[in-house]
């Protein structure tokens, strides 16, 4: 093996490392290792002077490998790789030893901590000697986008992309656009018409030739990887012999929305048995028809709204559905404006008025003399038919929290604020595009705070209520965010592929296909002609599952070769 020239840099990280590790002793130890030209210590290696020191050393002393013993590579690997690049050295000829998170922070005894720091540094030195220069790849991509779901999220994203000049396929299961929002009358808290929100978008989509809306359609198969997906779309009205249409797209956006909770699952609310116990969506229908009435056609004197139906409960869904509280207040206004003499009771668990304008809306609702009654989570009210001598149709028994009394509320009409839940076909969609779901069935984002619309599969984005319950502004914001992410990639025109990925040696691969199914990113294809597996470089995340699995050792993980890993282990285990 040809010898190399390694520079080792040991960071004190202020006192973060130096307080437990004797950095000077690590330095002298590192200098004794084979191929090490010299080792240096510095207070903050990640600082500009620290980086400049490395760059200068590479140039002046012809270093061809660098080891930095400092913090976690998640923290500063990128920083030091850049330093290598600016000195004209390939960025992969670098290795980091984590002597902070995995050493100084977790050990109290300076002697043993220093021994461990030496071992970690030695392991990095052994490994880096075997590093090879690697280059990142770029591949072409399709500028077209597939959007699954034609609700407010799908329509908004489609317009955003189409109006920027890019082709969009908008696949909708139903025969019309609008999704769940099309079932709503007014919106909270400003009492704007939902129809106005939707029709504007539908008109713009119709007149935009960049959007191809496919109605009564489902996506049946997705293949490929970021930038180069192929999706099969089938018309569900056409029968089984109907051929699927193949679409080539660069990115896919999933905005399949939610379905409402089935209120008949809660037996003591009497939904389905008591005719005047209705769900919020049934009430929306009533509002759209223009007349609020009981099943017998009477105007209700007493109306009651029951919150958290299916939400925030032990038995059903633990989460809050976020939109019901404000929708309920909207109903109060709609009930009162239809009949000012109507007594409205709002039976809630907690009033969640978190959004812009929501608190004002709650105050305005109090002003119209709404009777707010509070019940304890999981201590559900019971609805029953009233006696004929009562002046109301039903009575709701509630253990009222703010008075401490068990009360019964008169009601002629009870509106159940049904929560949101994941659609029954969400599992199917998740498998189709290879994304994960949480235990409630909602799609999981790549990072809940920093990557709210991306998924763990590159090129697949999620937005709106298929991710979690949310209101219209949040849904629209997510749709636009996802569209912006996609536009950014389309503008770039190429897909960057990290140099670290798996490679199959076709001369060794026997075509057993074990790796094909194990790959969590669907990044391995089978070439039937050659009878061997093939890694789609752009889709591979270098997790190493295939490398470890291959019974013939035909797969190599670039930058994680067997020799590199074993050298590192040897470095770690050999006596000091």
């Amino acid at each position: 093996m040809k010898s190399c020239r390694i520079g080792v840099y040991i960071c004190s990280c202020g006192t973060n490392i130096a307080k437990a590790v004797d950095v000077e002793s690590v330095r002298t130890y590192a200098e004794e290792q084979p191929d090490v030209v010299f080792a240096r210590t510095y207070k903050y290696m990640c600082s500009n002077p620290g980086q400049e020191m490395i760059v200068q050393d590479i140039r002046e002393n012809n270093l061809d490998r660098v080891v930095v013993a400092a913090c976690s590579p998640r923290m500063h690997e990128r920083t030091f790789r850049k330093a290598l690049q600016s000195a004209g050295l390939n960025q992969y000829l670098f290795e980091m030893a984590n002597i902070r998170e995995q050493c100084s922070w977790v050990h109290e005894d300076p002697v043993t901590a220093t021994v461990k720091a030496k071992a970690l540094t030695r392991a990095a030195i052994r490994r880096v000697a075997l590093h090879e220069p690697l280059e990142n790849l770029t591949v072409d991509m399709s500028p077209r986008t597939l959007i699954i779901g034609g609700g407010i999220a799908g329509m908004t994203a489609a317009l955003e992309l189409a109006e920027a000049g890019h082709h969009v396929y908008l696949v909708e299961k139903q025969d019309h656009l609008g999704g769940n929002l099309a079932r709503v009358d007014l919106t909270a808290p400003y009492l704007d018409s939902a129809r106005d929100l939707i029709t504007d978008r539908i008109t713009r989509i119709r007149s935009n030739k960049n959007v191809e809306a496919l109605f009564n359609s489902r996506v049946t198969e997705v293949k490929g990887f970021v930038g180069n997906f192929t999706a099969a779309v089938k018309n569900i009205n056409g029968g089984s012999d109907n051929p699927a249409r193949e679409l080539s797209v660069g990115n896919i956006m999933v905005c399949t929305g939610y379905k409402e909770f089935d209120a008949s699952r809660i037996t003591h609310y009497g939904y389905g048995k008591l005719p005047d116990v209705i769900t919020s969506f049934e009430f929306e229908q009533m509002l759209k028809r223009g007349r609020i009435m009981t099943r017998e056609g009477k105007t209700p004197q007493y109306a009651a709204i029951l919150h958290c139906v299916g939400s925030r409960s032990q038995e059903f869904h633990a989460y809050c559905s976020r939109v019901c509280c404000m929708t309920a207040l909207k109903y109060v206004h709609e009930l009162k404006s239809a009949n000012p003499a109507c007594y409205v009771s709002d039976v809630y668990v907690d009033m969640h008025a978190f959004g812009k304008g929501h608190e004002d809306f709650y105050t305005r609702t109090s002003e119209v003399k709404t009777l707010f009654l509070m019940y304890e989570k999981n201590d559900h009210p019971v609805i029953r038919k009233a006696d004929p001598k009562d002046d109301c149709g039903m009575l709701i028994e509630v253990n009222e929290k703010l008075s401490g009394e068990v009360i019964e509320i008169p009601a002629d009409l009870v509106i159940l604020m049904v929560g949101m839940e994941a659609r029954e076909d969400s599992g199917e969609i998740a498998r189709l595009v290879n994304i994960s779901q949480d235990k409630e069935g909602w799609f999981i984002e790549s990072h809940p705070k920093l990557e709210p619309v991306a998924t763990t599969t590159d090129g697949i984005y999620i937005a709106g209520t298929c991710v979690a319950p949310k209101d219209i502004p949040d849904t629209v914001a997510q749709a636009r965010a996802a569209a912006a992410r996609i536009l950014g990639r389309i503008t770039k025109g190429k897909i960057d592929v990290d140099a670290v990925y798996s490679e199959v040696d076709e001369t060794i691969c026997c075509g057993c296909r074990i790796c094909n199914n194990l790959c969590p990113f669907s990044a391995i294809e089978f070439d039937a002609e050659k009878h061997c597996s093939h890694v789609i470089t752009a889709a591979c995340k270098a997790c190493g599952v295939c490398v470890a699995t291959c019974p013939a050792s035909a797969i190599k993980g670039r930058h994680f070769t067997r020799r590199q890993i074993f050298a590192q282990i040897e470095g770690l285990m050999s006596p000091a």
Partner: protein
Amino acid sequence: MAIRVNPKLIEDLTSFGAADVNMCYHCGDCSAVCVHSDELYRFPRKSMRQLQMGLGEKIDTALEPWLCYYCGQCSDQCPREANPGETMMSLRRWLINRYDITGIAGKFFRSKKTEILTIVAIGLLTAMAALTYHFFRGSIHVYDGENAFLPSLLVHLFDLFLGAFLAVILLLNAGNMWRLTMLKGKEISIPWWLYLKEFLVLPLHFFTQIRYAKCDTGNREKPYMPWIVHLGLMWSYLTMLILVMVFLPFLQSGPQIDWSVHIFGYLATIGLATGLVYFIRSRIRMHYVQYKKTHATDWVFVILLLIITVTGIFQHIFHRLGLPVAANVTYLLHLMAVTPWLIRMPFTKWAHLIYRPLAMYFSEVRRSAVALEQKSEVSFRPVLQTI
């Protein structure tokens, strides 16, 4: 057994002054800031809740409204402008109505027209009676003695008759209050001897209004001011009532001043005038939250008392100055105001003179009963219900 919610009740309470109750979202700031709210009597939040929900029976049997002197701190602190202080005030009006077995109180509170017309009618009837007597017997030029325009003995008899009427009605209403608050509203058994044990509470609060002194007035005025003025007004009123009811013939003698009797009259007049000026000025200036909303019956109360005081002062002066005609005319005007005033006493705000000390007394009896009960069992109350 579940209690039926009655959303209609609050509409009725609106005519008693409860306007902003629905704004309350039960943060409990009002109960936290109130010096009188304690473990057993929790208000105003709880009263607000009962009112919002229209729990009629709970409201009618509650003593809490009488434990509040309306310092206004709760309304000051309320983040929702739900005005808990005013709500307690309206509940007191409501309770005066509920205790009243004749149903007249409710009519007065609900309609100021009814109240004012009744006062005017009684005033005119009084005048007619006096003038009829004058037609047969008395002379407008004579103030005192046999041929007097309004002989003090006759007026004295009339007063005693009115006093008896008052006493009967008040007694019946107080009995009704006891029935509602101590029998109907009881959650525990109250042994009879507790009424004896706590009896001193009644005169204590009647004569000292000592709880009022504990009210927190913030930085608005000296903490003892409203209490002192209110106490002065009550003492003056009581003195005057006794003078008129018991010593009228001595009071009306003259024209020379009989200091042994009149000194009390002068002191009482000073007290009444001071109190009236203080409270009328406050209601006009509306500088403290408790004076911002004045119910029609409150205005009638102070205005009528002002007329009585002013005419009383003038008829006294005219009599001493030897002006019998002027004295007789002002005296007639005085009686025209006094008669309706006395008749409507049990049906209006005035009745709190009796109900409030009674409520203090009953509340202490209940407290003792609860203490007795707790000796045998440890009670647990969820935190939320303690405010």
